[in-house]
């Protein structure tokens, strides 16, 4: 009776706990136009909320700090051009860092030097663009940015997914090592005999 109970307990615990997988800290930082955006969370999809992130310069000196929002997302606007390092400590040994070479995107300002007299230049002059059209473009860019962010999340979740093949691959390696161990132990024993 107790044997059956213990077998059932082992099986039950394994089934219950296999509902999900272990996680690790995921920390991404990327340049988005004139700001730096980033996300902090775990590989199981949970995001780190209101987490302090330390910003250090190339010399390792803390120059600023930023906090994640309720979606684990943060936006940081650097004051100067530099090699920036973002560090986070979630406690109990869960640390992560990400580095970015911050280069302000001044190149985004379109210059049409030498083309002032052409029809194209006239077309692209700010004065010719209606305010409503500008608002529409900004709105489209914001939508696109949100979509790219979502795609980044999905891509990361896909990369972090522990599929069965990897688990079976790991067990396969262990079996291989057991075989190797047997071979070495048998050789040692034969030498002894």
């Amino acid at each position: 009776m107790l044997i059956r109970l213990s077998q059932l307990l082992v099986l039950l615990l394994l089934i219950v706990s296999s509902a999900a997988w272990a996680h690790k800290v995921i920390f991404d930082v990327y340049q988005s136009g004139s700001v730096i955006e980033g996300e902090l969370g775990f590989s199981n999809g949970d995001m780190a909320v209101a987490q302090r992130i330390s910003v250090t310069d190339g010399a390792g000196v803390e120059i600023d700090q930023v906090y994640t929002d309720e979606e684990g997302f943060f936006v940081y606007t650097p004051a100067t051009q530099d090699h920036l390092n973002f560090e986070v400590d979630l406690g109990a040994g869960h640390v992560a860092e990400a580095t970015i070479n911050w280069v302000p995107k001044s190149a985004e300002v379109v210059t049409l030097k030498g083309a002032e007299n052409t029809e194209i230049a006239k077309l692209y002059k700010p004065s010719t663009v209606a305010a409503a059209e500008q608002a529409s473009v900004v709105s489209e860019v914001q939508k696109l940015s949100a979509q790219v962010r979502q795609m980044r999340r999905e891509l990361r979740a896909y990369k972090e997914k522990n599929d069965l093949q990897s688990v079976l691959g790991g067990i396969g390696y262990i079996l291989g090592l057991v075989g190797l161990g047997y071979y070495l132990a048998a050789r040692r024993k034969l030498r002894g005999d």
Partner: protein
Amino acid sequence: MHIVDGALSTQVLVVGAAVSCLGLALGLRRMPLDKIPVTGMLAATFFVASLIHVPLGPSSLHLIMNGVAGLLLGWAAVPALFIGLLLQAVFFGYGGITVLGINTVNVALPAVAVFYLVRPFIIGARASQGLFWGAVGGGLAVALTTLMVAASLWVSGDEFIPTAKLVLISHIPVVIIEALLSGATVYLVCKVKPELFMGRG
């Protein structure tokens, strides 16, 4: 329970690597032919169990199973747990290569401690006693691992008491689950193959 790359000081990493190398050498020397399958099986158990997490509030914890490994293997638990940690780091990025040594020490030394502290009570014991001592061994191994993780972080600059509290309190459910699981496993082994607890370890 996996400390990641970059969380610990160089001194801790070096000491961890050195101690784990000694443990590996001792574990491999004390692994007779008939213990190899059990070692492989427990390495696979640890490898898979650590990938499985137990949801707890906003976070989640994973099983370790180092207590059972220690009770059955003794020093041979060191190579078994090392292989599990190495494969987890390579396949899934859990922990890391530079922290492999200290992670091995934190998980495997409590297993060896449980071997010496608890296993004498299991040898020749009735299955019901094995259930109790198995639970004690499983829970104790996890508790010791949390303390060693906290100590590793403390030596690297964190404050010991708050870190130890955080790690230990957050792992109380794991201690309980592992105690149940280890108790049930030891009970089964006592019933069907008690000779697995023989040998010097």
